[in-house]
């Protein structure tokens, strides 16, 4: 088992190395001179040269690459062209709103999606199943900003129940925090919940057709016990895997939602960086989110292998 854990952890290293290489190569494979494009149209030759030097583009490729890997390993994600601050510092400053948003979204999505999936599977082929799954595909297809702006327009502009935009930290109290966070978390959560609900449904269907479910029913267990005790427990692994893999959607969505609701998180940092063509920030954010994604999925994988005795090493 220890051997398995070590192997699995080591298997994440090449993936992260590939991510770093891809992100490094982006700057070099893109047609045209990146320094000129980043500098913008009104830039002077000196400015272009300064950007070229700060991106390290004036050095030999291999030297750049080795230097880049070493810096990432030491936690240095580069320096912002606009503010001159270290990107790692900028990301850490913006971490709290993004993490709060992600966690709240995740909780909302799971609370909506898992029961939806269970009920749809239980009522397979009926109008209940059909309606739930139709709603799932509708919300999966609805772009996050549309849901977001419709919610803002109704709850904040028309009914004045909630603040329009912005962010309050949890340390300002749970009320202000939730009133600012609930709409963004719902807009993002609905997309994610749709994905999860569909996955939960198919994972449940697979389990519900097993013999031991028939046995459980035959011995007279109530429906809710069969569903939530026997079936859901066994459908948990594919559901949790989907939660992990779906995080990639959540991360992409965070960037859009933070922009819609003016939340000063990492997504907002990215959007400001787009406007200023501050490439090192974009690069740093990509690396940060990709590494977080790989590590979370590694942890999920390890956890359920530790918890589920059926999985052999």
């Amino acid at each position, binding site marked *: 088992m220890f051997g398995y854990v070590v192997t699995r952890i080591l298997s994440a290293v090449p993936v992260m190395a590939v*991510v770093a290489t891809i992100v490094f190569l982006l700057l070099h494979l893109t047609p045209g001179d990146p320094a000129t494009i980043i500098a913008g149209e009104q830039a002077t030759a000196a400015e272009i040269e300064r950007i070229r030097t700060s991106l390290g583009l004036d050095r030999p490729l291999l030297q750049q690459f080795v230097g880049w890997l070493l810096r990432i390993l030491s936690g240095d994600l580069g320096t912002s062209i606009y503010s001159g601050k270290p990107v790692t510092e900028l990301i850490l400053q913006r971490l709290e709103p993004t993490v709060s948003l992600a966690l709240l979204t995740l909780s909302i999505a799971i609370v909506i999606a898992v029961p939806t999936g269970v009920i749809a599977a239980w009522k397979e082929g009926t109008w209940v199943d059909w309606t739930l799954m139709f709603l799932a595909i509708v919300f999966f297809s609805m772009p996050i900003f549309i849901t977001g702006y419709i919610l803002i327009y109704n709850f904040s502009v028309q009914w004045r129940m909630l603040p329009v935009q912005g962010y309050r930290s949890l340390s300002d109290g749970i009320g202000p925090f939730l009133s600012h966070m609930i709409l963004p978390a719902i807009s993002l959560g609905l997309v994610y919940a749709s994905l999860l609900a569909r996955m939960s449904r198919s994972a449940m269907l697979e389990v519900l057709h097993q013999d031991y479910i028939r046995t459980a029913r035959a011995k007279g267990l109530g429906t809710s016990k069969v569903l939530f005790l026997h079936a859901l427990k066994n459908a948990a692994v594919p559901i949790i895997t989907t939660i992990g893999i779906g995080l990639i959607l959540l991360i992409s969505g965070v960037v859009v939602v933070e922009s819609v609701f003016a939340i000063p998180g990492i997504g907002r940092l990215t959007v400001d960086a787009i406007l200023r063509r501050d490439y090192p920030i974009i690069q740093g954010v990509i690396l940060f989110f990709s590494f977080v994604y790989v590590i979370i999925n590694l942890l999920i994988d390890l956890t359920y292998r530790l918890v589920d005795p059926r999985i052999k090493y």
Partner: protein
Amino acid sequence: MSSTRIMISSDPVPAQASAAASRGRKIARWMLRNPRIAFGAALFGIILLLTLLAPLLSPYDPLQMNPMNRLKPPSSEHLLGTDALGRDVFTRTLYGGRASLMVGFSVAIAATFIGLCIGLVSGYFRAVDNVLMLVMSGLMSIPGILLAIAMTTLSKASVTTVILAIVVPEVPRTARLVRSIVLTIREQPYVDAAIVTGSSVPRILFRHILPNTAAPLTVQATFICASAIIVEAYLSFLGAGTPPEVPSWGNLIAEARNFIRLAFWILLYPGLLLGLTVLSVNLLGDGLRDLLDPRLARQMKARS
């Protein structure tokens, strides 16, 4: 997989006078059995027609500004009102669909083709499989929108750049799908037979393996198209997409965001049409997947 399609398309049609009516009934019955495909295709067809016929449906120019007519609510003159520069929202919404749908189609075709090539090579040639799949895992670990943002920030804004930037993150899933099909198919006796009888590798790949990827790839391409339409809108919304002067749905929504208090319709209608388009394509994909899924197809056969 192919047997389902034959079963559906080659229903014998009696040569009598009632042939047309009978065929009509058959199509109707088929549509009832596949409501998602029928509904998705119909909805998508309507939207496609609306965007293509935009010049006939609207007397206005999508770029024509009219400062006298700023932020007018929907009326008989301007069906969906006007935007902050007095441009007709209905016209811009229709024209906006052209850019968005074009990006969707192009990305679906390009990503499917590239994914197919990588998947075929990776599945058939063990030597490169590990490396290619590692690169694919790496790409799949990068949030697609961020990867696309990086690519468009590094290039001059153009529709081509946006298409390319959306294609790259979509390739790995297709490549993996094709690879897994190739891995199953190459174990089949008829592939062994082809190898034994001396078929060349390209012949085996294109003649014996490629046809098996057609159905799953069609489904995958549909989902890629839906996702590409959304991603294009997100990129344009974030300022990293199609050049702002192109009236794509993402750009319309990005411009409208500052006027949600005064003129919500500028944002709502392009947004709803965008959502409906993605929904229609997703429904089509879902329906096709169930239709082309070999396991379900067998069940259907057993029932009929």
